[in-house]
């Protein structure tokens, strides 16, 4: 069963994003196919070189870079949301696949989860 976890909240505002990421990592830990889709405000997770120490937190872009090590199959970002927040391949972390969420992506997964 393939799971897609939707990340649609900006980082650092609340814990829902961390919890969603934790869930994705846990699925990966048990070798369950899981991918992440960043959309809406959620694409701000992907901005490169966040210095979260300034607000006494851990940088989510660095946390995310561990996703493929843990076995998360893909990191998708909604193209329109990226455009809206001025994100392109130069300002985003590596390994992101741009997706058009209105197209078939959601249909490829048996289980789509959004925690917020």
């Amino acid at each position, binding site marked *: 069963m393939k799971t897609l976890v939707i990340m649609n909240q900006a980082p650092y505002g609340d814990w829902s994003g961390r919890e969603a990421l*934790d869930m994705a*990592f*846990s699925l*990966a*830990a*048990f070798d369950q196919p899981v991918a992440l889709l960043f959309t809406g405000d959620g694409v701000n997770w992907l901005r490169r070189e966040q210095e*979260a120490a300034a607000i006494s937190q*851990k*940088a989510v872009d*660095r*946390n995310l*870079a*561990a996703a493929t*090590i*843990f*076995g998360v199959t893909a990191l998708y970002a909604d193209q329109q949301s990226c455009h809206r927040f001025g994100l392109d391949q130069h300002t985003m972390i590596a390994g992101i696949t741009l997706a058009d969420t209105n197209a078939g992506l959601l249909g490829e997964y048996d289980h789509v989860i959004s925690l917020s």
Partner: protein
Amino acid sequence: MTAMPERNNEGFLEDAWAWSPEAAMAIADEDGITLTDNHWEIINFLRYFYKQHEMSPPSNRLFVKAVKEAFGETKGNSIYLMQLFPGTPAKTACRIAGLPRPTNCL
């Protein structure tokens, strides 16, 4: 002997950057572990992992996965890591490497 950095009630360092190899040896000693090259390979890997990702591998399974990703099957398996770091390997290894407690280890 250098002073032991501040630790929490489970023996994990409060500040990962206060870690030193001497602190690692002292913490390992509490667990009855004498650190060998094989231990240091994993400890250095965890230090590097933390620097890159600002997190400890969140669970034992993900610790094993991360080691497997870095060193292959012969080291990335739970028996090997259990022999080096008895108990819950992720917890024991992170404690010795000065990393925060893995969030999903009981």
